[in-house]
Structures are given as C-alpha cells and as structure tokens.
C-alpha cells in the first residue's frame, strides 16, 4: 500500500518534470566543476554558455559542483526543472550523467571528456588538445636553450599522456636533443602545488614550462623566473605577458551553440564528438613576438597543415621509451590508439605513475 503510494508520488514528480519539458520554453543547463572565475577550464565552458545565451537560448549554470554524491542531485534538479539539454563539463560526472539520463529520456545530455553513452540521450564530446600540443612542442623545441622542457601533468590518463607525447614528438622534430621532464601533481586545480611544480622544473634546468592543469600559477611562476611558458585552456597572456609564447584555447562556443540549436529544433542525435583545430574547438592564442617572425610563420603554417589534415600529430615512425615501434613509418596513429594511449614515447624522462 505504502509502496504503491510512494511509486505514485515518484512518478508524479517525474511526470511533472516532463510536462515542463514539453513547454515551448527551451532551456539549456550547464554543470561546472570549478568556479567560473578559474581563468582556465570552467571559464572557457562558461564562455561557451555565454555564446549560447547570445544565440537567443535561455541557459542556467551551477558552478563548483563536486564530482561526488552531489553531482547526481544537481544534474537531476536541472532535468526536473525544465532544462531540455544539459552539458556536464567534467569527467567525474560520467556515471551521474548516465544515471539521470536513464530517468529523463526526453532530456538530452552532453558529457565532456567521458566515454560512457549508456542511453540514446547521452552524447560525449572532447577536443583534440594534442594538436595544440604539437604546436607548443615545435615552439618549445626552437626556443629552449637548455634542451629541457618542463611539463606539469595532472593525472596519468590517456588525454594527458597524449599531450606529453604529441609535444615531445614535435619538439624532437625541430631539436633532436630535447628532453621532457614531468612532474605529476595529481590535481586539476591547485595553484600552490602547480607553482611548486613549475619551480621544481625550472630548478632542474627547464627553460620552457607547460602544464596540463587549470590555474594560472605555472605561467606566473615562469614569468618571475624569466623562462618561457604556455597558457592552458584559456588565453592566459595577461597573467604573464613576457613569458607566454602562446596559449591552447578550448573554444566550446561553436559546439555548444550548434548542439543547443539542434536540440531546440529536434535534430539532435547521439554522437561522440572529437573536434580539433579544423573545427575550431582547439584554437591558439596570439603568438609572442619574442619568437621571431620566422618561427611565427612556421608555426602558423604548421597550424594550417594540422587543421587541413596534411600533417598529423602522431605520424610514424614513433617509438616507445624502450625503443619498440608504436607507429610504423609512413602511418598515422588511429583514434582508437590515441584514445587509449598509456605509454610515453622515446625522449620523455621517467615512468608513468602506476
């Protein structure tokens, strides 16, 4: 008796959610892992949201949602309160997103950087950040005097390892003597730790620093120490105007606008998107004039070639640290191999933490 009563109540709640959805009032929700003012990862997703707003679509966001037990409630609340399309912008939202998607088949979900699409209303998307890393590698290989590149890495997941490898391969091409030194900080956002890691790398002789973490601390540390650096996720030039050579910019705006319009017009389909320089999901910040006009020209050409597909970041021959061949001469790595990348290429120092 009571069980039935609760069932009735629960389904009533869900129905309420759906009935709001059928309203002409189309709304898009965003779930952020950090504050909108982090000047990195979340800041760029927020810029994407602003573009959706500018396209005349109503949006809502919730910032600093922990990737624990709270994520599911926030996503569910967005679904219940009449949002038709929900972007969950961090890997840790993967299971909660799929769980909520099951209960709201009429709401569309877009999960960033994940690999689970358990229901037909869940899409995943990510960017080919490694193409940007190839450009950074080319620049770093030319700019370094000590032949040592310092790399602050977050977690040993394929995306991060792919970036390290792409950078190292490109740098080796222009400077065979370079070494890549890595410090693992095991965090996405911790300015204190990131600054310490940058300093440690500089102390070990690195004169070019780059990072796969979200804060501006590494570029600021590099500026103080007088070494070169690169912005990550967002254009960080104003935080270290002398030191920054360029930035990898995640530009989610075109994708968000396109998907929001598709969902509004009923043409949204499940898909797994992996866009790069070509589609503009990865963009580069302004190049520092300290690079010299020749190098800027070279890099701009490489950027065009990567976008057109003439050059691929992972073109063979590629060897792992022990000298085993990973990609044969004349071949390029396929997306499957890139998605599961879990070994360093030759020239990277140290071991992947296990």
């Amino acid at each position: 008796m009571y069980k039935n009563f609760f069932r009735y109540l629960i389904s009533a709640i869900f129905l309420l959610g759906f009935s709001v959805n059928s309203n002409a009032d189309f709304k898009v929700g965003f779930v952020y892992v950090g504050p909108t003012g982090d000047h990195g990862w979340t800041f760029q997703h927020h810029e994407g949201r602003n573009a959706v707003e500018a396209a005349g679509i109503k949006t809502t966001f919730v910032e600093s949602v922990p990737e624990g037990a709270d994520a599911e409630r926030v996503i569910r609340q967005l679904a219940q309160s009449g949002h038709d399309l929900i972007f969950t912008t961090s890997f840790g939202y993967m299971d909660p997103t799929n769980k909520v998607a099951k209960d709201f088949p009429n709401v569309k979900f877009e999960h960033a950087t994940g690999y689970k699409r358990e229901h037909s209303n869940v899409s995943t998307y990510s960017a080919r950040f490694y193409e940007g890393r190839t450009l950074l590698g080319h620049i770093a290989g030319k700019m370094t005097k000590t032949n040592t590149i310092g790399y602050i890495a977050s977690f040993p997941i394929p995306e991060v390892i792919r970036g390290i490898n792409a950078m190292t391969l490109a740098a080796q091409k222009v400077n065979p003597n370079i070494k890549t030194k890595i410090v693992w900080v095991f965090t996405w956002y911790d300015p204190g730790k990131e600054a310490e890691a940058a300093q440690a790398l500089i102390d070990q002789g690195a004169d070019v620093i780059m990072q796969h973490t979200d804060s501006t601390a590494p570029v600021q540390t590099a500026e103080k120490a007088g070494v070169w650096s690169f912005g990550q996720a967002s254009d960080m030039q104003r935080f270290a105007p002398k030191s920054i050579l360029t930035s990898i910019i995640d530009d989610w705006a075109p994708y968000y606008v396109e998907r929001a319009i598709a969902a509004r017009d009923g043409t949204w389909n499940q898909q797994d998107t992996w866009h790069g320089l070509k589609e503009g999901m990865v963009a580069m910040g302004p190049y520092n004039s300290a690079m010299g006009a020749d190098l800027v020209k070279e890099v701009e050409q490489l950027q065009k070639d990567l976008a057109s597909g003439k050059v691929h970041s992972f073109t063979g021959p590629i060897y792992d640290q022990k000298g085993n061949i990973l990609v044969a001469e004349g071949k390029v790595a396929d997306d499957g191999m890139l998605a599961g990348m879990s070994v360093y290429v030759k020239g990277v120092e140290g071991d992947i933490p296990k």
Partner: protein
Amino acid sequence: MIKIEKRNDVPMALYFFTPFIAIILTILGGGIIFYILGFNPIEALKFYFITPISNLYGFSELLLKATPLCLIAIGLSFCFKSNNWNIGAEGQLTFGAIVGGGVALLFYNQEGFYILPLVITAGAIGGMFFALIPAILKTYFNTNEILVSLMLVYVSKLLLDYLVVGPWSNPEGFNFPETRQFSDSSRMPLLFEGLRIHAGIFLALAAVMLSWFILYKTYLGFQIKVSGLSLKTAKYAGFKGKTMILVVFMISGACAGLAGVGEITGPIGQLHRMISPDYGFTAIIVAFLGRLNPFGIIFASLVVALTYLGAETAQIFLQIPKYTGQVFQGMILFFLLASDYLLFFKVKILNLKKNELRH
C-alpha cells in the same frame, strides 16, 4: 563606559532557544544579502529554504545530506562535551572510507549478505583507529589534539589520493583516479525505489539513541559531562581521565568512519578523491548548533543540510552564486556564538559619575 559582566542566572530554556534565534537572524541576514545582490529577498529565500524540499525527491536528498552530518556531529558531541577538541573528523571519515572501501574492493566480484556488515564494521574501526592517534598522543605525550587531529586530515586525504591513483585504481578505468564500482552486496540498500535515501540513515538514528543513552544514563556519560564542566572537579572525583579521553575519541572516530562508509556504499558506490565535501568540518557547526544534544543535533543537521541544497536550487533558479551556502553556514555559527555571548554575559553601559570613578 562599557562593562561586561557574567550572568549568574542563565535560564536553560533560553539556552536551547538561542539556536532558533541564530537561524532566524541568519535568514534575515541572508535576505538582506540577497537584497543587496539585487534579488527579491522573499523569492530568493523561498528558493533557498522551501523549493529544495517541496517534493519527495528533495526531502530524500535532505535526509541523504543530513545523515553524515548527524553521524559525525553525534560523535563530536562526546569529544566536545568532555573538553576534547577533535577537529579532524574529516580525516577520520576519510580513513574510515578507505578501510571500508578496501574491504568492499576485496569483495568487488562477490555477492553475499555478510559483505555489507563487514564493510560497515571495517569503516567504523578505521575511523576509530584514526581518532586514536590524536587521543594517544594527547594522553601520553601531552600534544595538542586540535593540531594533531587537523593535520591528520591531510594525511588521510593524501593517502586516499595515492590509493585511487595508484594501487587501487580501476584496472579497466584508463588510469582515471577512481576505484572499481563496488558490488551490489557492498551497497547500502535503498529505502524507496527512485530515491537515493539509503539504510545509512538508520545508523545515524541508532547513533542518536545510543549517544543519548550513554550521555544521560551511564557513568561514562556522567564522567564526560563533569570533565566538560570542570577538569579539576573530574580529577578530584577520581575519574580516570586518560581512559575517558581514549573512549570519547574512539566513539567520535567510529561515527565519522561510519559516515564515510555510508557515503561510499550509498550514493557514490566507489572510492575516488571527492568522497566528502568537507562534512567533517561542517559537522562542527552542526554539533554546536545542536547544543551537543543528540536530538538537537538531528534538528541542526537538517538545517545545515538544507543550506547545501538551497545553495544549489538558488543558483539553478535565480543564478545566485553557490557560495552563499557557505555564507549561510558561517552566519549560523556567527549568530549562534554572538547570542551565546549575550546569553552568558551582560553588557552594561555605565554613567561616569565621580563616586564610581573613586572605586
């Protein structure tokens, strides 16, 4: 001239009533903040305190959020009542989750009714053990338990980081910092289909009952209360202080460990780096708002849990920054401490007369 005097006659009724005054002042203060931020205060407060629990799902979420807060605060009340300042409940929660989660991972591919009780017990023992460290250091080496317990929070969090990145990370998980999903036998049973509220709430209720019994019906409870009122009296009465300190820390740690295990076997279902949004610290506010009284703590945990939910709803519907949740929690504590001060002390404004100056 202002003179502050201790009040001699503080009515007990008022003592238990001030938390309500603090909450009312917080709501008023919150309304003013919303007004300054440019929102309609009535509407904002409605989204904050009413909308989150206006349906069954929301109510279940409130209980889900209040469960760990209540458990930890119950444990802390034993420590605080006896003048032991355990600030490291967050660490004990984390360590309990590590030990409990470790057991759950041992049985990741097995089913059996005995697994969940094992996991829960392991979590409680883990928390207990972690709380014993500051307790033993305090009793035998005279260290400051505030510092030790606080520092151990970072130790346990870094240990958890290490485990989920390294040895315990999911072998099929592409090196992402998380363990495997626990098997269904290590998960807390859900109470209602479609809602997330789980059997862990009974642990919290049992803790409330048990703590009431211990505090008010046993010799240990008497010792705890006397030690809290006056350590000298306790010594004079011949209480064995060291044992009591160890016991209250163990109770406190076990409760925090249970809270941790409740989170990972309840809504989360695996170990990763974000198992608690600082429940261990927020529970300190809960314990004091509840006047260290078991039933007061139930009430306080619901109020504080609501500030979390309200912050989310207010952001979804009005785009009020989510950090107002922390502002509300801060205001509750501030107003509570302020009204306590006025409760125990009176402020006198004196006229400066010549004959008074002569004193």
